[in-house]
């Protein structure tokens, strides 16, 4: 499969929403250790809302799907993380504007734009113990593979390693920064969500292509 249509894109978001919903309590626990304990509740609610909104769009373009997701995350979550997860999708809208079907290069652009947007808005760099620690390696690993079938698992693995790397870091952004050294030993919830997202996309892609062959 070389081209991805709106139905696949919707299904990808449904897969993400499902994975996040299953991890709700785990994400809350991670955020309880480093922040205010609401990350799982708020991001799962926002993705649930996304799925419901997508179901209401009769025949959405890829860019509409991405924009709807962005809006549901920004407005459903609120806070800095809502703005940042929202931005990840919002900045992906422009590169795919007008397109009916997406190819690997579109995804490269969409993720790169999302990553750049998140970093510009949140001012976080690698090592700051934020979602960027999972997102940036994932986006780079995805781009580094020309073959889309190999890109998804590579991205998922990079995100997962990135998320795990946050455990030993001292936060320089987000609520966790006020914990200072007391945050060491806890994995960042936002980075964990990014890892879960890419794992869900990888699984979805694997199942879909298995079904196809």
């Amino acid at each position: 499969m070389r081209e991805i249509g709106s139905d696949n894109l919707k299904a990808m978001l449904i897969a993400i929403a499902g994975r996040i919903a299953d991890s709700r309590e785990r994400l809350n626990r991670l955020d309880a250790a480093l922040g205010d304990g609401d990350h799982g509740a708020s991001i799962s609610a926002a993705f649930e809302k996304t799925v419901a909104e997508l179901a209401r769009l009769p025949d959405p373009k890829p860019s509409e799907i991405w924009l709807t997701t962005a809006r549901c995350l920004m407005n459903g979550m609120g806070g800095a993380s809502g703005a940042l997860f929202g931005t990840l999708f919002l900045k992906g809208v422009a590169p795919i504007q007008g397109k009916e079907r997406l190819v690997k290069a579109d995804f490269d652009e969409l993720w790169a734009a999302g990553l750049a947007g998140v970093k510009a808005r949140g001012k976080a760099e690698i090592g700051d113990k934020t979602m960027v620690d999972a997102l940036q390696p994932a986006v780079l690993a995805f781009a580094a593979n020309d073959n889309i079938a190999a890109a998804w698992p590579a991205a998922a693995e990079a995100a997962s390693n990135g998320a795990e790397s946050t455990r030993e870091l001292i936060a320089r952004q987000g609520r966790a920064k006020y914990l200072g050294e007391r945050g060491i030993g806890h994995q960042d919830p936002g980075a964990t969500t990014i890892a879960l997202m890419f794992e869900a996309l990888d699984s979805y892609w694997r199942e879909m292509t298995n079904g196809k062959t």
Partner: protein
Amino acid sequence: MSARAHKLINQPQNIVSEMLDGFCAAYGDIARLTDEGLVVRATPKAPGKVALVIGCGSGHEPAMIGWIGEGLFDVNIAGEIFTAPGPERILQGIKAADRGAGVLVCVSHHAGDLLNAELALELCELEGIANVDMVVLYDDISSAPKGREPERRGTAGLFFVWKMLGAFCEGDGDLAAAKALAEKVRDNTRSLAMSLSSCASPVTGQVMFEMPEDEMEIGMGLHGEMGMGRQKALSAGETIDLMLPPILEDLPFQAGDEVLVLLNNSGSLTLMELFILYKRVAEKLAEAGIRVYRSWIGPYATTQEMAGFALSLCRVDDELKALWDARANGAYMKQL
């Protein structure tokens, strides 16, 4: 330890909406809840005046719903507990506030408030809504050193900005002048907070951080953000002697200056303690040759039931004094 796990609420997920319902039911002559969940003035200000909007996380009551009203804000967009509202809700607030002379979005400097306000202004641009601007406000000297003021957090001292900017926007000044006034007050305001206790999240019931019974922390933020470090709990006089000098040095406030003073109750300090603290503040300011124009003592921006306070000073000139004394009628901020 004053953290209290059992709160008198119903479903945690409905806290904010029930709170807004209750507030607007109680103070219906001052504030009204729109279908979109915005808290707006019961009687909008006259057309042709700059409107003031603020979005912010809930859990700090009476901030900011208590500041909707004549001589104060036009619209408050309340987020979830300690969570700024998203950009589309802020956009709704901007639209609801507009009286034809522009809208100033006020941001108490925290990541969530700032990022969502930025996004809201981008949405305004997309929709072609002009004459909207934002002003970023901060006052907490503990959150970044002198010289890096724009990195500081917004805390209780923004009280002074809200009051004077609110009064200014009842007049005929334009949007740029309103923003300049807000910055003027901000640039003359400095705050420092302390706390003796933690508090519990009303959503999860969990204590926000641990705090030994005989310790205190100077510089704690409005959400329990770590300050300059823990130390043995001191007496009232000692506490002021520790907190006032860095505030005075930061601006600096100097002999001959005239100031407004706020002692903001974070939650469960008693007024008795605040009056005793104030006595020391007044004595020390008199010694320093700084004249107090007016003072306010009470819970204006709280952090649940945290036992602490913020001390804020604002240097004033004749313009600011007049704005300070102007009439205000919010449910929790009244000036006759």
